[in-house]
């Protein structure tokens, strides 16, 4: 059984090592100077996210939306994000930068892992032109009760600007300072914004509060606000 798993892993690794392909993504074109690369979480793309992308495009922010679990036929699990070939994502980031627009990546939950790995794979000059917004990023390797948290090392993030959007109502909120320190140790310039009265994935909750329903409908406004206040240019 171990040999079989090793064989499958080897086939998988070799198949990805052959070449990097820009993954299939949905484009919401716009004429403005900004390009937002939206990478959905391990739970896949949700309807309110698509609506927000449409609204952003209507306001001049071109948006490319990528659903990694659909693009790579992966199960909807956090560990699936770790299996995404980051060279493909790096090729995607380069294609976006080649558009001449200001590129900001927005990644949700564990999608932060392949996005940061892709950013680390860029040339320093490419990375310095990139901004990354991470919505409640999950970068844990180990998060066991009574044990110190351990975060993934993704490679050098020197020159990368990272903004973490953290819903207040999350078990991860008390751990945010440690996450920001970890990003800084890898070279990123990390900052954060707390989103009050919201839970992780508030736009796809089974029992959302009235406030979460309202905020789901105006996710585009929240992102525009944070993009403008952050001023990553």
């Amino acid at each position, binding site marked *: 059984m171990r040999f079989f*798993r090793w064989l*499958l*892993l080897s*086939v*998988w*690794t*070799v*198949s*990805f090592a*052959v070449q990097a392909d820009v993954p299939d993504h949905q484009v919401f074109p716009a004429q403005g100077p900004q390009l937002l690369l939206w990478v959905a979480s391990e739970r896949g793309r949700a309807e309110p996210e698509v609506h927000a992308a449409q609204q952003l495009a209507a306001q001049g922010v071109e948006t490319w939306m990528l659903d990694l679990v659909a693009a*790579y*036929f*992966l*199960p909807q*699990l956090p*560990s*699936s994000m770790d*299996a995404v070939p980051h060279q493909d994502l790096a090729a995607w980031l380069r294609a976006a930068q080649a558009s001449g627009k200001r590129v900001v990546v927005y990644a949700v939950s564990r999608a932060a892992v392949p996005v940061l790995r892709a950013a680390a794979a860029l040339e320093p000059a490419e990375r310095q032109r990139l901004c990354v917004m991470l919505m409640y990023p999950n970068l*844990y390797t180990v*998060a*066991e*009760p*009574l*044990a*110190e*948290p351990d975060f993934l090392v993704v490679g050098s993030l020197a020159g990368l600007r990272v903004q973490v959007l953290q819903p207040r*109502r999350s*078990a*991860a*909120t*008390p*751990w945010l300072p440690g996450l920001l320190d970890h990003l800084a140790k890898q070279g990123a310039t990390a900052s954060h914004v707390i989103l009050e009265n919201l*839970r992780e994935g508030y736009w796809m909750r*089974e*029992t959302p509060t009235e406030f979460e329903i309202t905020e789901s409908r105006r996710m585009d406004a929240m992102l525009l606000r944070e993009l403008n206040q952050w001023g990553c240019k």
Partner: protein
Amino acid sequence: MKRWLGVCAMSLLLAGGAQAAGFEARAATPAPELKAQDLAGTTRTLVDYRGKVVLLNFWASWCPPCLREMPSMERLRVKMAGRPLAIVALDSAETAEEVNGFLSRMTLGFPILLDPDGSNTKRWKVFALPTTFLLDASGRVRHVLTGPTEWDEGEALEIIESLLAELPAGAKSPTGGALTPQ
């Protein structure tokens, strides 16, 4: 084609690796410090519960699985009345107003402690809610559960009974002091 076969194979491996969480037995290690105020403003520590088995539950009012298991914790309290079991629910990183707002909708007889700055949550290294620690009467962590359960039945009740069974005969008697509900 080869590439997609590889992806599919990896997907199966990943899917097969997913396991449901359950009670995790720990090698009797001393518990971290617990220092938190209850809703009356009294500071509580684990010393207050020494000599009793302790069920320490980390929760939050915005967490649906936490709220789902709360009624079973209340049933457990009633079922174990007079026995040396302390049920303590520590709200993680919320204000007293938020907790009181929730308690106005659900009546609970066990103590609720507050951790508005998350300091206890960090000392106990809690990364998901609910997380529950079962401590023996010497204040040592013996079992950990991440996620909800029905506390008044099944494996949860068996583990609690096994910890109670370790107590000296006199300490197990129903006349032992029960925690005063708040």
